């Protein structure tokens, strides 16, 4: 299972990448593999404000609907519209397929790659 070292993670299988005050969020390789073929992504709107733990996106596979929880509090600055037409990118490249960019972020407690690895080994 791919768990890049330069990211932070959540117990609910989201990843976060910080780049100069901008936080990119997505779902992990483990999460996309558990869901199977992803066929629809509902993105938030630019300007939406989220508190850590809020539902920020919804991802649907052929069989099921999964919520994506915002790993941090912040405001949506941009969304990855490419996923609307090609949701399968989340399966093909989970760490390249960010859903939203957040700014004005208050980072909370996130998991290190080692902590996340232990978590999925237990599941």
């Amino acid at each position, binding site marked *: 299972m791919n768990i890049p070292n330069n990211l932070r993670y959540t117990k609910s299988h989201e990843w976060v990448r910080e780049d100069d005050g901008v936080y990119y969020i997505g779902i992990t390789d483990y999460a996309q593999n558990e869901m*199977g073929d992803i066929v*629809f992504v*509902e993105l938030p709107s630019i300007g939406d404000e989220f508190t850590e733990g809020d539902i920020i996106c919804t991802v649907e596979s*052929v069989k099921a609907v999964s919520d994506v929880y915002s790993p941090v509090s912040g405001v949506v600055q941009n969304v990855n519209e490419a996923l609307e037409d090609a949701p399968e990118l989340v399966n093909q490249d989970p760490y390249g397929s960010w859903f939203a960019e957040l700014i004005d972020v208050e980072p909370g407690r996130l998991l290190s790659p080692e902590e996340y690895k232990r978590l999925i080994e237990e599941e």
Partner: protein
Amino acid sequence: MEIKKTPLYNRHIASGGKVVEFAGYMLPVQYSGIIVEHHAVRSACGIFDVSHMGEIRVDGPGACGFLQRLLPNDISGMKPGNIKYSPMCNEHGGIVDDLLVYKYADDLYMLVVNASNKDKDYAHIASAANGEAGILDISESITQIALQGPLAEAIMMKLAPCVPKKYYSFIETELLGTRCTLSRTGYTGEDGFEVYCPNSLAEPLWDELIKAGDGNVTLCGLGARDTLRFEASMPLYGHEMNDETTPLEAGLSRFVKLAKDSSFIGKEPLVRQQAEGIKRRLCGIEILSRGIARDGAEVYHNHKPVGHVTSGTMSPTLGKALAMAIVELPYNEPGTQLSVEVRGKMLDARVIEMPFYKRNK
């Protein structure tokens, strides 16, 4: 409840199937992925373990008369080797289950029922029979394997001395030296076969069918089985029908023979419903907005609730979000504009003809 393994469980694990509990059995929901498996069945061939399905033997001189009284469809004209689909109703006209009737002889039939309803069905059938026919649940001794897709016939003919030619017919034949029931049936909308064999044959037959395909047989799980049956608009118990839905509402009128000689369980309420006019009926819906409508979503016409979605997903073959829904008349007419509520949003939708997918014959 004890969770059972089918005789092919070890094969599923060894082949990397993602095994989940379904209707009391450990079965693979997918191997390589639902969409890949789905396309394989539409374009080539897929193999499914469907041993969770229930088989009930009905025998004795009273068997035909009993089934006529049990089922809304007319089985009186069936010949040995014929198969008929029928709903099975309770005394209120609601659907207990839907099933296939296999006629082996005038005094011997097999009913194939849904796994999740097996015990309920057996209780219903045995109590209705009340000694008129012998009723035996033989599910535990039978493995059922489905081989589906346009290449299924060529692959099956490598193993079977002959195959049933007509859809919805079966033969008894030897596969790998063991007597099996081989039927030309399926739940995918493609041509294909279902084999009923003793459990001892499960692993060798599974292996040999895959080998006979020479790389063209894709292992398929329950996920693809569901998307395939959905595109073919084949109803699924617990979704398109239940104890409170009548076959007339579930779009199964052509399997209900109100005029047949024999009376049957549920006939009176169905006659009454037919005379009074059906108020709601199953229909197909295409979602026009971005989004997917799933089981349970409310359906509206000009803000008035008119029904609910029974099954829905993104159709892998057609590339559209489609749904089946039970909707009040006359909003079930193709072309009617509807809305479906998904996570608080109203999606635009339109009634379309079913089946969504029909193979070229």
